[in-house]
């Protein structure tokens, strides 16, 4: 009865209880790691949100001195970096962790200890990045860190170094997790779960892992080259030594554009789960959804230079990248029509997850349309570095990713905690967020077209920017308040929420076939699947209702044992890289390498048998 892929069955080499701090530190259970990702990422998300509110407060009126230009630079850089690498990506990772194994009918991920390692490396990376605040040296050159703002000459402090090392550590976490989830999806599907029967969330997650695997090595090299320039005297991006600052832009966006799809594809997956369930209809155009996702990912590697039209690449390059970018509108449009087709004629259940999912579709369309606008180089030259761009990417990242991830949080919270969230507070959250979001970001279109530049800490009175900036700041306060409602909803539900049944929404996928929250081994009996939407099929066969699954004893089910080596190895990994923060701190690097090696060897030879 052992179905854990690692065959790491029944090990008690590093025993630990099921409760208490130690059990969380040593856990290799994908569900617990998912919760760790979720809680950590949400805290970082709130931090990023706080940074945004400070930025908005500064811009609420002209000529304010609430923030110094230096502090403002640090805040917008850390806001962007935090939201992307510590907010949206790990919030997606929470859902990867918790729901990929459940949706494909597996007992865990392919490599449970590697999964724990990924989480701890992510945590340490986030801490290193934010430790920069303690040194009053938070990164201050914008989240894409253009050369030569980042050269030692123009940025002599540790600000850029914290950014390099923090991102390098986070990249290791992402790559380790990507290998793990890729293998999990390919290899651990339950019998009958063919590729073209996988839930759409699993499909979009799979594509995301491929993007991570192929895009992160590029930024890894770019960050290494930048570090060498700053700390070892090379001239890769320094013109005085023959280097080319524009090469940084190419390398960064070769990673950066696929990264955009890394942020949005999981959101597409979440919404593609929710819309069918609350419309009581199968997903419209399943195969078209799969292939348009693949096509978006493929094109995502060929359009990076549309971020660089203003560098003057010449008419040929501009044309190619412009056409490629416009081409992406086709598969994306296919997806949007399929979502509408899914809801069309359905028996729509107006529950909170559905509100957020529908909000996502509407907001993402707006962000997509402005995206097509700056696919045109002449238009882009007018819009670049203005608030129009800020409006665009907040409509796709907040209106897109965050709306969808919030939808996912409401959808899956009952499964993860065994408690229902309040519907009335949920809908209040939605309307406040919807209102606050649009008040904050819609006026940025106008301000951008009127010439307000991004990344400038203030503006003068009389330029015509006052009114809409005041509206935006008011909107951002409403937006911030909406998340307070969310937190209250979560805390109330955890204390006294209604107990969630196994399947509160009449779901279609396997995670709803087991108790809420799932038992440690997920499935007492390995499920077999013979179609898409397996649970709907089962319910139809049973005549409309399924009995509540019983909580069973796990006797005889072998699970991977807890281990403290992942956190030790992760600590060594982070320490090694921190050694490169200030030129070279040799003892830190050597100690870090020693701890990492110790961790890897102990991990590899952790006894597998009694």
């Amino acid at each position: 009865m052992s179905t854990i892929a690692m065959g790491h069955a029944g090990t008690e080499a590093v025993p630990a209880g099921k409760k208490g701090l130690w059990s969380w530190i040593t856990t290799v259970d994908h569900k617990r790691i998912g919760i760790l990702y979720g809680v950590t990422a949400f805290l970082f998300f709130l931090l990023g949100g706080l940074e945004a509110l400070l930025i908005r407060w500064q811009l609420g009126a002209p000529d304010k001195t609430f923030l110094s230009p230096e502090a403002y630079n640090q805040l917008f850089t850390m806001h962007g970096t935090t939201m992307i690498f510590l907010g949206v990506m790990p919030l997606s990772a929470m859902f990867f962790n918790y729901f990929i194994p459940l949706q494909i009918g597996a007992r865990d991920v392919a490599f449970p200890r590697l999964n724990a390692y990924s989480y701890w490396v992510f945590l340490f990376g986030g801490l290193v990045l934010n430790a920069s605040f303690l040194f009053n040296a938070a990164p201050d050159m914008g989240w894409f860190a253009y050369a030569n703002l980042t050269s030692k000459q123009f940025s002599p402090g540790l600000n850029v170094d914290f950014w390099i090392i923090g991102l390098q550590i986070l990249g290791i976490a992402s790559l380790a997790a990507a290998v793990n989830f890729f293998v999990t999806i390919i290899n651990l599907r339950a019998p009958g779960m063919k590729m073209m029967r996988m839930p759409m969330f699993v499909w979009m997650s799979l594509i995301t892992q491929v993007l991570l695997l192929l895009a992160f090595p590029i930024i890894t090299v770019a960050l290494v080259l930048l570090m060498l320039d700053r700390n070892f005297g090379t001239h890769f991006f320094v013109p005085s030594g023959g280097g080319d600052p524009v090469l940084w832009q190419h390398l960064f966006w070769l990673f950066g554009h696929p990264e955009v799809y890394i942020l949005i594809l999981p959101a597409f997956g979440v919404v593609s789960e929710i819309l069918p369930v609350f419309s009581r209809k199968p997903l419209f155009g399943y195969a078209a959804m799969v292939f348009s996702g693949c096509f978006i990912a493929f094109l995502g590697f060929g359009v990076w230079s549309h971020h660089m039209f203003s560098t003057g690449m010449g008419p040929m390059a501009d044309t190619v990248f412009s056409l490629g970018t416009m081409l992406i509108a086709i598969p994306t449009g296919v997806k949007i029509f399929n979502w509408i087709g899914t809801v069309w004629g359905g028996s729509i259940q107006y529950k909170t997850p559905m509100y957020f999912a529908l909000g996502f579709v509407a907001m993402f369309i707006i962000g997509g349309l402005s995206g097509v606008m700056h696919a045109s180089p002449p238009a882009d030259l007018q819009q670049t570095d203005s608030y129009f761009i800020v409006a665009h990417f907040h409509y796709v990242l907040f209106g897109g990713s965050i709306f969808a991830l919030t939808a996912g949080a409401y959808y899956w919270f009952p499964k993860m905690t065994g408690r229902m969230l309040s519907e009335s507070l949920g809908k209040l959250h939605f309307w406040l967020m919807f209102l606050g979001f649009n008040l904050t970001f819609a006026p940025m279109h106008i301000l951008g077209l009127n010439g307000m530049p991004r990344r400038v800490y203030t503006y003068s009175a009389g330029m015509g920017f006052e009114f809409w900036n005041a509206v935006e700041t008011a909107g951002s306060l409403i937006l911030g308040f909406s998340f307070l409602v969310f937190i209250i909803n979560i805390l109330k539900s955890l204390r006294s929420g209604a107990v969630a049944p196994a399947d509160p929404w009449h779901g279609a996928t396997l995670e709803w076939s087991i108790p809420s929250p799932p038992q440690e081994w997920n499935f007492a009996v390995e499920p077999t699947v013979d179609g898409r939407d397996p649970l709907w099929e089962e319910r139809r066969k049973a005549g409309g209702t399924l009995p509540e699954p019983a909580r069973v004893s796990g006797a005889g089910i072998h699970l991977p044992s807890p281990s403290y080596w992942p956190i030790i190895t992760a600590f060594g990994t982070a320490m090694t890289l921190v050694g490169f923060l200030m030129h070279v701190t040799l003892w830190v690097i050597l100690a870090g390498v020693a701890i990492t090696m110790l961790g890897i060897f102990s991990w590899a030879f952790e006894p597998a048998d009694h």
Partner: protein
Amino acid sequence: MAHDTAHAMHPPTATGLDTRKLAIWTFIGSECLFFATLISNYLVYKGHSLVGPLPHETSQCMLHGQMSTCEPIFEIPLVTFGTAVLLFSSFFVVLALNGAQHGNRKKLIGWLSATVVCGLFFVGMQVYEFTHFYHKGLGYTTNLFGSSFYTLTGFHGTHVTLGVIWLATVLVLAIRGKLPPEKSLNLEIAALYWHFVDVVWIVIFPVVYLMR
């Protein structure tokens, strides 16, 4: 990595592929982009160095604090020999794996030792080469050629070194009799990584050393 695996019975996977083998292939796929970026970086800056020494041409360069004429840096015969040794090591590890799969301990230990020795030779050659180039005037920050060359080949050398440590670990297991045929996958995975490191060098050798 030599994960557990005392289990002769591997649970069946959806594809029939071993999970750890699929993982190393996935990792290798990702590593391809890592080296592709480093190689691109080398090629982008080819011919953009402001001063010598240069790979194939005689050039003006700073030597012992004064401008002088520098000879071309590369010495093809030595690196060709190193390349051959590395390629042969890929062949040797296949023979070792064959020994492991058929329970032929002598064959396993003999050829695996040969592989490790070849790997060590290659790393040694690189250390010698770097020192030699340095004395010929090519420091790490001398010019773009030096920086991009040392960064690319240095990362490759680090990969070779890690591969040697990995294979040596498996060799110790083999000598202690802990690599029976049913565990030969532990060697196969290390070998896949080793082949990949070789293949990367097969790209680097012509692109960096032979192409003018």
